[in-house]
């Protein structure tokens, strides 16, 4: 296995706030990694640094050993990194099929080709029946599926999922976990931000924990959840006294 993504000493400061602080981590090709941490820990900021929405104050992002620091989001997408947004961003006045076709155009210029790719992906994520529905008419779970479908359509090697499981009921959660696992089994490396810890543990073989922009723990789900520092970060200092 080789390292598909490497973050080297990645730091970003917004004025006096250091949102991501000397973050060093990597992803192996084909693995599924969970990025967890309390609210405001810098998880989404880390995503935005990887895909080029923010430029880091210092540090580097390497993708397949190539330095992609400073590239624009659309260039990062063409390199092979897809991402979803925490607050889903469907193109509301386009149909589900058209939404996905937009992603497919990253790899083809022909509308027919894009329609074919979209059709395959709708099958994969289970949106085939909603093909001609305008995206703003979708339910929340459907929108989350669409969000993944759009990212998948760009044919990424690495998929960054930002809280795609939040707000789902148990049945929907189970289906979504199954979907993410199958995407991973197709050979797409996954890095996911998630608050639903059970789900993260079900999908990911490795977890990285952020707190105040720093990496405070890394390891298998079992190691991480029994780590006292992680417990402290989530539940506060008082927890020890219990």
């Amino acid at each position: 296995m080789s390292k598909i993504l490497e973050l080297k000493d990645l730091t970003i400061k917004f004025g006096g706030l250091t949102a991501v602080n000397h973050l060093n981590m990597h992803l192996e090709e084909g693995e599924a990694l969970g990025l967890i941490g309390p609210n405001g820990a810098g998880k989404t900021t880390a995503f935005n640094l990887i895909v080029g929405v923010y430029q880091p104050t210092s540090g580097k992002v390497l993708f397949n050993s190539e330095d992609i620091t400073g590239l624009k989001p659309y260039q990062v997408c063409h390199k092979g990194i897809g991402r979803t947004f925490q607050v889903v961003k469907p193109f509301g006045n386009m149909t589900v099929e058209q939404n996905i076709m937009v992603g497919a155009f990253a790899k083809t210029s022909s509308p027919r080709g894009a329609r074919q790719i979209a059709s395959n992906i709708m099958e994969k994520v289970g949106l085939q029946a909603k093909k001609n529905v305008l995206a703003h008419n979708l339910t929340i779970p459907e929108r989350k599926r669409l969000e993944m479908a759009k990212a998948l359509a760009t044919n990424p090697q690495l998929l960054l999922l930002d809280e795609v499981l939040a707000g789902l009921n148990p049945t929907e959660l189970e289906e979504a976990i199954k979907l993410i696992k199958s995407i991973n089994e197709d050979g797409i490396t996954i890095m996911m931000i998630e608050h639903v810890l059970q789900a993260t543990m079900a999908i990911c073989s490795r977890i990285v924990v952020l707190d105040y922009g720093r990496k405070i723990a890394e390891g298998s789900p079992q190691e991480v959840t029994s780590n006292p520092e992680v417990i402290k970060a989530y539940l506060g200092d008082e927890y020890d006294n219990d």
Partner: protein
Amino acid sequence: MKFDKKLLLLIGLVVILLLVPMMVTRPYFLHVIIMCLLWAYLASSWNIIGGFAGQLSLGHGIYTATGAYVTMMLFNTFGISPWLGLFVGGAAAVLISVLIGFPTFGLRGAYYALATVAISEGIVVIINSTHELGPFSVGGAEGLIVKMVGDSAAALQFSSKIPYYYLILFMLFLVIAVSYWIKTSKLGYCLIALKEDEDAAAAMGINVRNNKLIAAMISAFMTALGGVFYAVLIRYLEPNAIAGGSMSTQMVFLSIVGGSGTILGPVIGGILLSLISEVIRFYLGGQLMGLHLFIYGVIVLLVIMYQPRGIVALLGQIVQRFSGPKTVEGGVSGVKDSGA
């Protein structure tokens, strides 16, 4: 079966349009129809950047003026045929669209709209105060009179209105074809996506600025051709009429009321509203100053209040009622709406 019916309807419409000059014999009426088609053409040209890409340009008068002035200055001074001059005028308009778009398309919010307003106001002032430009006579505030050479196809000067009718009809078909091509190609999907959400579009590999620039350039070129047509039809360029705010806002108006972002919305809006405006002016123009404009404004207001997606969406609903639940073009981006 359905397709055949549609095709038949289309052929019938085209035949009727081709026969119009034989049915309308009074030059005044034909002139009114020509102006309606010109407004439909201009609204459709604006729609490429304003509707498909959702970038509000309030200064498209810049491009009509650029096309008209450049072409006519070349004609008046060097006798260069407008058929060639229109490419120079179009190129100049494209250049200006890049100069406006390049610095502003990377920014969020109203910067592009503000830049278009500022530059179009500036252009009006410049034309109004420029009498000579090198070897060219610009005419300043008195306007530019196109040199008359008598009936000549090369100079696009005809004593009859009929050739102008066919010319603008062809141009309208052209802009509809261009719109159709954009809408169904990769470019169209990218434009609508970036109009909906720039961040999401960028995350899906779309170079937002370049796509906006391409749309702006196509729109500027098409609009400039409309300016050239205006110049050869009216043969007199008055700076405020060809470059001013009313020229710019009229294109926006017709396109939005007709249904911006759709292929046929601006065409329908342009023809219908221009016709209404002309009819009202014909019957009420002499009675009370400004009354016809007031009534026109009320009609536009009603459409915006009760059919904010444009007349084309209204027509879509009517067609749907009569032909059952068949999808028709309509809505903000003209996509099929089969959802609840």
